[in-house]
Each structure stands twice: as structure tokens, then as C-alpha cells.
């Protein structure tokens, strides 16, 4: 296939995509858009770093109801978990030792796209299953004595979730409840442990408007 044919096909594809988008915009309805603001409880799993469950986090989602059952949009969240480790002697290498207590802090900021499938289209109560995917920034800090060591990094993020949207008046605003698991590919090195992949589990409680 010569370059001219490729160019023609590309132009045709662009025109078709533009047409589809134009049709989408023509059907755009602001009342199908919703914003969720959630408080969340989160517990890191299997990192052996800062794995104490905490409620220091929020989740925000802006979604559009494509059809009565399908919803898609963008999300951004943040969370901090801590863990105090009592004074102990750490063998940093075959010849190095460090005795100290530690205050560990794990900070995570995932963001990306989100999609959900409503299991019911009931006016007042809509259970759903969904998934989030995107990128995550993570910063893991170890504070000890008068010092602090941290490492930060980026990774891919994916998070399946199940939830419930409750609309008490049957109108646009409601209450949001969700449980989730997440996994990110972030790699960070801390004072004592190397973290290769971060898993979390938690739940969210928020409002929809």
C-alpha cells in the first residue's frame, strides 16, 4: 500500500471519528453528568511499610451516563497511611546496623479514567460494578530521630470496585457507597524494605451531585 492510500484511509478514519464525536456532542446532556466526592478508608496490603488503615483520603469522580446502564468519566484520589515502628536494630547490610524507632508515611495519588455498569436502573437505588485505571504517584517516607528518608515514583493503576448509588428523592443528588481493591505498579525503596507494587483495599462514602 502506497503512502497516498494510507493518507486517504487516515483522512477517512478521522472524518468518521469526527462524525461520531459530533453525534456524541449533539446528544450531550448536562443532567447526565455527575460529580462524586467521597471520603475513604484505605488499608495498604502486603507492603509491610505503612499498612495501618486510615481515613485520611478523598476520592473525586466526574462521570457521564452514556446509557441507562453505562457510566464513564475521570477520577482523582489521594490517601495517606501511617505506621509507627518501635525502636529496633535494623541490619542495613552485612556490616551496617541502625537502631531507631520509625514513623512511616505512605502517600498515594491515583488518577485516570473510570467506568461503571449499573446492575439496576432503579430510580432510587443503583448497585454497580466498575473499574478505574490510570496512573499513580506514590511517596513513601520514613521519619526517624531528626531525619526523614523518602522515595517517590510513578506507576500504572487499576482498581475494580462494587458500589451502591442511593437517590433518596429519585432526583440527581444522592449518596455513594463503594468498596474497592486497587493495585499499582509503583516501585519505591524505603529505609528497610523495597516496595514493588502496591495493593490497597478500602471503602468510600460520599455524595453525588
Amino acid at each position, binding site marked *: 500500500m502506497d503512502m497516498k492510500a494510507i493518507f486517504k484511509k487516515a483522512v477517512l478514519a478521522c472524518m468518521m471519528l469526527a462524525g461520531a464525536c459530533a453525534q456524541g456532542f449533539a446528544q450531550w446532556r448536562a443532567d447526565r453528568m455527575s460529580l462524586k466526592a467521597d471520603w475513604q478508608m484505605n488499608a495498604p496490603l502486603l507492603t509491610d511499610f505503612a499498612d495501618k488503615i486510615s481515613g485520611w483520603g478523598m476520592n473525586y469522580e466526574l462521570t457521564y451516563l452514556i446509557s441507562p446502564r453505562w457510566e464513564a468519566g475521570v477520577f482523582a484520589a489521594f490517601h495517606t497511611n501511617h505506621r509507627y515502628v518501635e525502636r529496633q536494630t535494623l541490619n542495613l547490610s552485612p556490616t551496617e546496623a541502625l537502631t531507631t524507632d520509625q514513623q512511616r508515611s505512605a502517600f498515594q495519588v491515583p*488518577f485516570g479514567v473510570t467506568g461503571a455498569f449499573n446492575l439496576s436502573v432503579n430510580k432510587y437505588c443503583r448497585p454497580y460494578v466498575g473499574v478505574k485505571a490510570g496512573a499513580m504517584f506514590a511517596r513513601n517516607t520514613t521519619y526517624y530521630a531528626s531525619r526523614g528518608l523518602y522515595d517517590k515514583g510513578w506507576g500504572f493503576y487499576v482498581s475494580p470496585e462494587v458500589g451502591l448509588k442511593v437517590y433518596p428523592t429519585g432526583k440527581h443528588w444522592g449518596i455513594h457507597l463503594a468498596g474497592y481493591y486497587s493495585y499499582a505498579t509503583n516501585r519505591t525503596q524505603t529505609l528497610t524494605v523495597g516496595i514493588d507494587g502496591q495493593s490497597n483495599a478500602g471503602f468510600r462514602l460520599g455524595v453525588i451531585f
Partner: protein
Amino acid sequence: MKKLLLLACAALVMPSCEKDPDMGELDANLAVYTDYDSDVDFGAYTTYFLPDSILEAGSHHASYWKDENALAVIGRVEAQMDGRGYVRIADPEKKNEASVGVQLSYIPQTTNVVVGGYFDGWWNCGFWGPWSGWYYPYPVSYSYDTNTLVLEIVDLTAAESADGKLPVVWYANASGFDFGGRYNLQLLEDAVDQAFGQSPYIKAN
């Protein structure tokens, strides 16, 4: 569009919303770090020389810390070395006869911080409402004191290297906040015990 703006604002303030841990939960003890030359046989040493002063590193020149507080720290080092079976050579004229030399250094440090303009602050964002950070319209300064005690064992039996340097076969440092007074002295003495405690290989045959 309002919802979109709200989400954008939320995303912008997220990096400043890390919750700081409770630093008051950390104990006041100094963090003690040690390292050593694994090729050295500490059992082959028999005697040591320990000066009766601690070198205090200053920003321009070093001085020597010699008062009763310094002697208390030195005494703790002496007790540890004696307890490991080494014999102290007290006469400075005979220090060349010692197997090893033990040298102590103390580094006090005051950190001055001046902040102004935009500042993340320590309080959790959102505590007072939907603000994303803090700023001072005027300069604000504060300071905190830290201190480090360094203990080193140098091998006086080693063959002199081409550049005339002595090998440091054991290194320890204890660092943390300086609380001043008798309490801080106790922390330094405890740190000496800890440094030797986590170095069981320092032992005469």
C-alpha cells in the same frame, strides 16, 4: 462546567493534602548507626588509647570538649572497651603502644529556618475550610538543635599506607534532637552503650 471546575480544583490541591504523621510518637533516643571493616579481627587487639577530650566540630575550627559531661561520655566508652576485654593505655606518651585508638567527635548543629510567602504548613489542609495551603505576608523564623556523636576506632597496628592514613575499622554515629542539659547527656551515654551493644564483634580474645 461547575462540576468540572470543582474536580480540577480538587486535583490541584491533592499533592498538598498529605497527612503528616504524629512525630511526637517518636521516642527521644538518638538513632545509632554502626559499620565496620569485616576483614579486621577485633580479637587480635589487646590495648586501646582513649583521649580525655571530645573533639567538637565547629563551623570555622574545631575545639575540645573537656568538662565533666565530656568525661562522663568518655567514661562510658572506657567502660564498654574494658568490658570487651581491652586494656586502656592512659599515658599519652605511650599511645603508640596501643593496638587501637578510640576517637570521639561531637557535632552540634542549629538549623535556622526562615519562611515567607507560600508555605505548605504542617496543619492538615481543609481543617479551616476549603483552603489549599498557607502563606506568611511577613518573614517567620524558627530554629531547632540537633547533635551527633561520632565514635571511631582506628587500627594503630596497621601498616602505614602510602599516603600515611590510618584505617578506621569501626564507625558509629548517634544523632537526633538536642534537648540540652542532663537529659541530653543521658541520651548520649545511652547511645554509646547502644553503639557497642549492636557491635558484638568488638571483643578481645
